[in-house]
């Protein structure tokens, strides 16, 4: 939007919403919305406490281990599916099913199988992220130009060379797209896992704060989570745009 001929930056309206929030808080219209400034000063206080840092570290750990497994398993499986029709036909129905399935329902199963702890949260995170990574890697391989593969064959590339030097790179834009969506899903997964298994990380903090009606603390944690997930999403979108140049002219 333009004001007096000056183009306003894309996300600038969030500042307006922040001011509105501050006003609602200052006039104490509702108990649930403390002023934004108070939330930030609370954030400064708890931001350095051990509890908070421990929750952050645990969440980060679960997130990175979960996405690591999702990527390390998901990309090769996707590439294999794109290359081999048999594997594709065997796996695709399941991948599609889990992609649209409400995976939240599986958390109780993970809890009874793997216990109330980090392991279940990591698996939840990986489960949220992996299917889209598989599907995008598969799509990336399937759209590879036939002549590129024939070129590799005619120059006598070994299967290993073909896999790492052709398939992976040619499918890279789609793979990265899948990883980006996978990361966004993993953020949701790691939070949902912690909420349901509420004795680790931020899940435990949420329980503590909401049980004691510590609104400022609650919002402070929420804002940290929202900003981190938003930053991750934007960063990955930026990376994806950087490789998009060669996606367009393959």
């Amino acid at each position, binding site marked *: *939007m333009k004001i007096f001929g000056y183009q*306003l930056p*894309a*996300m*600038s*309206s*969030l500042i*307006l*919403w922040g001011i509105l929030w501050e006003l609602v808080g200052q006039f104490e219209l509702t108990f*649930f919305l403390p002023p934004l400034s108070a939330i930030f000063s609370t954030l400064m206080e708890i931001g350095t406490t051990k509890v908070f840092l421990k929750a952050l570290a645990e969440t980060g750990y679960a997130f990175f281990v979960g996405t690591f497994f999702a990527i390390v398993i998901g990309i090769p499986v996707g590439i294999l599916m794109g290359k081999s029709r*048999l594997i594709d*036909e*065997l*796996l695709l*129905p*399941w991948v599609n*099913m889990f992609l*649209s*399935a*409400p*995976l*939240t*329902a*599986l*958390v*109780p*199963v993970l809890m*009874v*199988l793997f216990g109330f702890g980090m392991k279940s949260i990591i698996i939840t995170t990986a489960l949220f992220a992996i299917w889209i990574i598989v599907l995008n890697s598969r799509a990336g391989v399937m759209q590879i130009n036939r002549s590129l593969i024939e070129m590799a064959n005619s120059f006598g590339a070994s299967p290993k060379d073909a896999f790492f030097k052709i398939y992976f790179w040619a499918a890279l834009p789609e793979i990265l797209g899948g990883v980006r969506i996978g990361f*966004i899903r993993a*953020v*949701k997964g*790691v*939070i*949902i896992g912690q*909420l*349901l298994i509420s004795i680790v990380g*931020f899940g435990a903090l*949420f*329980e503590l*704060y*909401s049980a004691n*009606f510590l609104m400022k603390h*609650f919002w402070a*944690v*929420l804002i940290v*989570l*929202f900003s981190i*997930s*938003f930053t991750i*999403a934007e960063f990955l979108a930026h990376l994806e745009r950087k490789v998009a140049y060669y996606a367009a002219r393959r």
Partner: protein
Amino acid sequence: MIRYRSYLLTFLSAFIVLGSWEIAGRIPVSYSFPTFVETITAFWVLLLDGTMFVAYGETLKPLVVGVLISAFLGIGIGLTIGLSKKFDWLLSPVFVVMQTAPLAALIPLLVMIYGIGLTSKVFVVCIMAMPVIVLNTSGAVRNTPASIIEMGQAFLGTKRDIILKIILPAASPIIFAGLRLGVSAGFIGAILAELKITPTGVGDIISYSRSIADYPSMYAAIMSIILLAVIFLNVLERIENFLFKGTRQGYASE
């Protein structure tokens, strides 16, 4: 042979997966891992004694109400954002943040505000389902091919005509896809609400059978809701393909 190949492979693949489930259950890999046959039996028991129907009546209530509210509000807001630059600037960022943020974290807060009743659960479904509906709708409106809008202007269409007869029909495939994704997110919300807020409906079967270590029933309930969601979304996708068959093509560029 070739004709039946894909059916055969689907069947084979189901057989392998369910077979390994059965074997893993028989070893057993874990005390709390029932076999496939036990799970299916528990499923039929729950279905035949009516427990399942009562439970789904309860579970689907917040889902249906929430999705309806989200569809109504979401498409309305999406259209406003898509048609007006001011509202685009004002509201788009809010929904973009909502889309990427783990909104599930708001649940404890919603419980504090609205208690543990239906309202909270409907709210959970709404905050999960709404962003994708809004963003799809506004994106679809904004991406209406410029040339057919120009055509409407050249042939003297009023603003109202152009919105109702050109922009809306052009956007409807993407809006519908947004609704499908909204329903998908709504399922997550409904289940989350039942597991986190108060165990009712299917969530109740899951929690109760877990507490008495009746694992087959627990697995059966979980399997049933996943299957229900997958089948329902699949049907929606088929309706979508049927309704909008061919209408995504037909431009000169193809």
